């Protein structure tokens, strides 16, 4: 077996090439359609990025974050505030940093405590940030919204979101191979043991949350040019937080690519509902949550993996009797 650099395994290399090919094909889409399908694809790519970034944190820790809208809105606002004078990439970086700082503060306040506090805190976070931004904007600028005019068109946004999604996957892969990833695995197995082998569990969780939040902030920044006029209620729309959770849980959060399985079908469902039954969106979301909790708690990938394990067990060779090795006596 040839030795690959950085200790990459053959399997990982195959997956990497597969993703590169898929991404290459996806990138060609805007050349074929510039209307409805491109718009749908932008939504798809947006939620692919958001759900994967969400799963980076909420997958290993099992802490359900409802804060996505807050980070997203911060990213959007970072761009909206400076788009007239500061170059776009720097604004995106600002958005990432702002989101990371917010994530750090929220994490420091709640991640030392049980998961319930975290969920409750993040539930209202987007509303809180929205209230503060609305108040600050009215008080200091007298306006209620910001104009964003750029040269970016839908297809540029699509490509940027595609690049972001790939970046998130690569980051997830790197984290898995790093000390932080190992620490998260140990924390997930037994938090007491984690603390006793020297892991600062609170710091690890906070760091991971900040990385996840920063990516969500970047997604928000990238999407800012989509709308000409940005207002707090749409930038900090709580529905974003809920949809991210639905799609990620629907897909399954044990693997980083799990959420994609949930994103693709749900985007189509959402599109259908938005077009035919726009007022019933909350009912659809409610049913989706309930269905997930009761029927697919580990997501679709959970169901698939269970089926695969059963199939493997049925087709496996007859198990050999495990010899009870006599305990070795040291000389």
């Amino acid at each position, binding site marked *: 077996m040839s030795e690959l650099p950085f*200790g990459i395994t053959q399997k990982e290399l195959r997956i990497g090439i597969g993703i590169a090919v898929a991404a290459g094909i996806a990138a060609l889409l805007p050349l074929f359609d510039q209307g409805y399908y491109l718009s749908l694809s932008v939504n798809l790519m947006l939620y692919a990025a958001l759900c994967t970034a969400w799963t980076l944190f909420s997958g290993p820790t099992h802490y359900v974050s409802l804060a996505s809208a807050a980070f997203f809105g911060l990213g959007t606002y970072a761009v909206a505030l400076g788009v007239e004078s500061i170059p776009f990439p720097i604004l995106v970086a600002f958005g990432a940093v702002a989101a990371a700082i917010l994530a750090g503060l929220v994490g420091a306040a709640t991640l030392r405590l049980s998961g319930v506090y975290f969920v409750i805190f993040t539930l209202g976070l987007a509303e809180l940030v929205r209230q503060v931004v609305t108040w600050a904007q009215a008080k200091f600028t007298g306006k209620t919204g910001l104009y964003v005019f750029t040269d970016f068109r839908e297809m540029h946004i699509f490509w940027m979101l595609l690049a972001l999604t790939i970046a998130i996957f690569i980051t997830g892969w790197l984290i898995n191979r790093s*000390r932080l990833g*190992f*620490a998260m*695995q*140990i924390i*997930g*197995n*037994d938090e*007491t*043991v*984690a*603390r*006793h*082998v*020297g*892991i*600062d*569990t609170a710091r690890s969780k906070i760091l991971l949350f900040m990385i996840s939040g920063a990516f969500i902030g970047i997604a928000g920044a990238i999407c800012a040019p989509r709308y000409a006029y940005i207002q707090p209620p749409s930038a900090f729309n709580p529905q974003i937080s809920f949809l991210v959770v639905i799609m990620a849980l629907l897909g399954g959060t044990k693997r980083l690519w799990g959420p994609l399985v949930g994103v693709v079908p749900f985007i189509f469902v959402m599109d259908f509902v938005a077009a035919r039954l726009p007022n019933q969106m909350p009912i659809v979301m409610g049913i989706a949550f309930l269905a997930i909790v009761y029927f697919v708690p580990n997501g679709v990938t959970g169901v698939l993996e269970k089926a695969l394990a059963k199939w493997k067990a049925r087709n496996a060779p007859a198990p050999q009797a495990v010899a009870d090795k006599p*305990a*070795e*006596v*040291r000389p």
Partner: protein
Amino acid sequence: MSLALSVRTVRKQFGGLVAVNNVSFDVHDGELFGLIGPNGSGKTTMLNMISGALKPTSGEIMLGHDRISGLAAHHIARKGVARTFQLVKVLPSLDAEENIMAGAVFGHQRLWGEEARSLARQLLERVGLGGREHMPVSAMTYIDQKRIELARALASNPRVLLLDEWLAGLNPSELQIGIELIAELRAEGRTIIMVEHVMDAIRTLCDRCVVMSSGVKIAEGGVAETLSDPEVVRAYLGDDDA
């Protein structure tokens, strides 16, 4: 001999219940120190305070010259204290090798990659589980899981090793092996504090010990003298046998 660990008038109170009542003792470098007493005497609470799982209500615990009482468990671990648990805590989703690496990666030596892996393999051999690097720990027998936990604790090269009833639940031949393993560790010069009920092990292994009863220290010294102390006998067996 220098002091590895020093417990100074440590007290732990839970609401109205005093679990540990102004207990003091010293552990020297290289000693195998026993912390014994009947059930409910506060010895596991004491151990938990040393490892940082609990904070003392008052008093101090010193590791060498460093004060460790009041620090969070991960800080104490990084300063060189490692432990096993009464109910064995292995990491079920990791294999044997990774379980042991967990001890080495975050301790004060901060090993990673191939270094950590080879140390884990050495320790696997050391505790008698050589060749089973990739075996899932959830499939192992109880004594083997205990050995993994011990190897994990050793992986951080701790200054003080805490064993919380590590010999409990073993059949006679496993007990023999366990006692020999601990004796070897002592021969290498490790400082070990053992909370234990198995009297044979205490007699054969420990240099000195401290006996607690109802939160109070009732004896301290060499093993033979403390175990024949009438107070100690009374604590374990009641008045008739003193």
